[in-house]
């Protein structure tokens, strides 16, 4: 899985606003989701999630599956 290629991401403090250039849809990512997207963008999917798990609290690790699913549903992440 990877970020969709036609995204424009604005990082605002610890959050993100994501524009899908193709559909024109705009999405807000809270701190947790923004961190996950940043990590996946930087390190790739598997290493990005590993990075998040290693540096963040257990509660965020618990949230990871739902955050990934949410970003898949919104087209922010896509299956390769």
């Amino acid at each position, binding site marked *: 899985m990877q970020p969709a290629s036609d995204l*424009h991401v604005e990082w*605002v*403090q610890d959050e993100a*606003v994501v*524009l899908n250039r193709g559909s024109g849809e*705009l999405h*807000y990512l*809270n701190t947790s989701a923004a961190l996950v997207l940043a990590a996946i963008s930087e390190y790739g999917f598997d290493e990005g999630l590993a990075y998040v798990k290693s540096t963040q609290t257990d509660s965020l690790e618990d949230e990871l599956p739902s955050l990934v699913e949410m970003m898949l549903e919104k087209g922010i992440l896509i299956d390769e």
Partner: protein
Amino acid sequence: MSGVLEDVKALNDDPSPVARTRYNELLTLVVDDSDKRIRQVPTLYMGRSPIFGARDLTKVKERLSLMIEVIRLVSLRPTYMLTACEFNGEKGLCGRDFFNRSAYRSRLRQLGMRFSDHPVTYFNGQEFACDGWEAFVPKFVILRKDWDYPEDYSGVIRTTGGVLTFHLCAYRLQGVGAEELRQLTPLVR
């Protein structure tokens, strides 16, 4: 009530210069010609939201003409459904509602808020502006209550930069593009 729109010039002008998007039935002018003792003042609606009302039908028709022009030129000028306002010398934007006769705006006026008569603002990449007001960087934005808060909540809700950016973009007519989003973000920070 027949014949109300016959003299609205904007309706008879040439089509928009860049017809990128069609808006069907976007604006509605409602004139209450019923026999009721208390009649609603002539009111202009955008979608289902009232945006302008006045006892004088001529004024409402003038606002209709203005809105038609605004919408026709949206492709040429980044336009936001936000009203410029000023409080204690600081300029800001109001998107909480759009109706000039709303109780909320009346209350704010009583408290000293001044609203622009122009219904929208334009973003030039660095500042917001509207007809009759100099361009400005807004110091505050008044928005509708966040959906996470109960309906009867009373008080100021401070929002984060990301949330504010996201909400601001929602007021952009015809949607925001990547470059404009990039330009907006520094204002929020």
